[in-house]
């Protein structure tokens, strides 16, 4: 592995927001492709960050910072990217469900997913099920991430699942839930596809789906 790409990885791991731009440009100057820099530098760096979050060494603010660092890098890379290259692992619709207005968790998931090459369509908070399904239709997104902290989540998740059934889209979309009042059991009960306890879990789940599992 080239040293310059390892430096990108390290900058992300160490949350070096000031250094990342120069390091990415350096990789490009050395003739590395944007795709390689993303895969071997950016994504791998984020994996390290994810591991540190799981072990407790990093915390919420660090995850958000890592997202910011990647945000610095992406425009520089995109400029050089082959327009034909699908830089997106897929579109993910994120929403805090109807009846709930808490958004910290959803926003962190959004940041981590965009930093990892997903196109995130964030519908905000207190989002009704039909709006989510309309967005599926207009954007062709296959992934839905629902967040909720409060009790009504349960009803609202069910509404999203039901409205995907009614629209004949249930087998086209993956519905992943997270948030304080959710659980594996609830996911099963509501007929959603998966439950993620943390933002890193959410990333792993969507990566699995994106890889065709």
């Amino acid at each position, binding site marked *: 592995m080239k040293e310059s790409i390892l430096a990108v990885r390290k900058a992300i791991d160490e949350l070096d927001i000031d250094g990342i731009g120069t390091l990415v440009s350096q990789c490009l100057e050395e003739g590395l492709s944007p795709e390689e820099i993303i895969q071997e530098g950016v994504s791998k760096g984020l994996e390290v960050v994810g591991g540190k979050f799981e072990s*407790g060494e990093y915390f919420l603010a660090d995850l*958000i910072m890592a997202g910011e660092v990647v945000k610095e890098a992406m425009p520089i890379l995109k400029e050089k990217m082959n327009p034909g290259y699908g830089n997106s692992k897929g579109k993910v619709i994120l929403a805090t469900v109807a009846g709930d207005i808490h958004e910290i968790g959803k926003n962190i998931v959004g940041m981590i997913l965009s930093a990892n090459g997903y196109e995130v369509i964030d519908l905000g908070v207190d989002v009704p099920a039909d709006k989510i399904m309309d967005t599926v239709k207009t954007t062709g997104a296959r992934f839905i991430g629902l967040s909720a902290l409060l*009790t009504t989540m349960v009803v609202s998740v069910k509404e999203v699942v039901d409205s995907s059934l009614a629209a004949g889209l249930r087998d086209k979309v993956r519905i992943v839930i997270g948030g304080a009042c959710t659980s594996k059991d609830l996911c099963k009960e509501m007929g959603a596809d998966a439950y993620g306890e943390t933002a890193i879990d959410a990333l792993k789940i969507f990566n699995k789906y994106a890889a065709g599992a």
Partner: protein
Amino acid sequence: MDHHTITLLPSGSQQSFPSEMFLTEALLDMGIALKTPCGGKGICNKCKVIVEGESAAVLACRTRITRDLTVHAEQREIDRDIHIPHVRPDDHISVAVDIGTTSVRISLVDTSRKASFEIASFLNPQQRFGHDVISRIAAGRDPSKLQSLQNLIRKAINIRLDNVLNAIELPAGMIEEIVFSGNTTMLYLLFGLEVEPLGRYPYTILTKDFKGILAEEIGLDCIGSARVLSLPVLSAFIGADLVGGLTLCHDLGITRNAFFIDLGTNGELFLLDGKGDPYTTSCAMGPALEGMNITWGMTADTGAITHIYAEKGGLRYHMIGQGKPVGITGTALVDLIAILLDNGIIAPHGAFSHNVEKYNLLNPLSLNHNGESKRLKLWGDIRLTQKDIRNVQLAKAASLSAARFLLEAAEFDPGDVEHVFIAGAFGENLDLNYFSRLGFIPYFPNATYEFLGNTSLKAAQKACIDPDFLKRAVTLRDKTKEVVLSALPRFQDVFIQSLDFPASKNGPD
């Protein structure tokens, strides 16, 4: 679902329970309230019972019922040593109860002599449905779970009261009144009200005052004819506990330029501005300071370390009782984290410091790993994990950001605050220096700080003694403005900024 029969000895009573239920819960239903100060983690060994067919005593909190069981257990223990003066036939005795999300406290109040006696302190048995109000509300959507939540708290209170009244030979008819305080969800569950609206935006509630109820109507059969009163609540998340604290402060003569925080699982705060207008807000702190989402955390009971002190090169502790300590309380956790910060063992952002492996740690600390995660070994089996520290940070970020928004909403400068009151049901005094070190609240440069203890219980006691206390509480409640944090767009940023511990002592925040 399968059911199994529990036979209780020596009483011989029998009852059937669903398979997989914890033995502690079944026994509670049968009138035996075991102590569970560690909240079911299995570290404190307080709930040991003899089960026939088992070679050794089992921990009831870790034992699921999977067959018919014969259990030796009797209700002999009354929480702590209680000192009740001799009661004369013409005395007036009332009961004050504080129902917290995590812990419950009961006092007898001698209203003629204006004296209160704490008679029971125990973990809220509703914990099996989750540690915070939101999870209780979530469970309460299901009618059968709502029924269980209601029964658990009513039964738990009734058993303790009944035991104490029997132990001190106080005729039940002498209890004229029972006054409750607690957060809105706990009171709604006690009084059998629907909790679902409490958890749904915009969280509108209709019932804010609770009157005209007899004890027997809420399952308190041992004092069936007593009148039930409660301090009033303000909203879904501003409960009687906060209103009680506000009224107590007023009674102390503090009517302006004051900041108050009740450090509970559901944290509640108020601010009295220069004109004396009260502002309030609440935040979800979680049960870290009550020791529940802390790996070796427990409430103040035998075997618990309640304070930790830094001495030359080492740490010293104070514990309840003798022998090997088995867990730490919230007060000791505050001491410990403050000491670790001061010694650079934990960095301000909450992680164990980079080269902590190479540090000469304070005796008896040593660092070890559990998988990828670092943790500190304390005394005996007790450890402090990285996740424990993170849970304390989540609690402090919640209270600090709530306080910042409250000050902002009241357009009040922290420099103008003269009195800072800290309240909480810790069972022990909170060390205010160490507490300030952790940055749970903003820095108030011109204020005097005071720890008031469990103001929720104290307010209920006062309401027993002073019949006008409730009226004053209602008046104050009606003029209090609530700041709803979740509706504020900047909440996320401020919350995240509030996660770090202050970099140094007396740092701004």
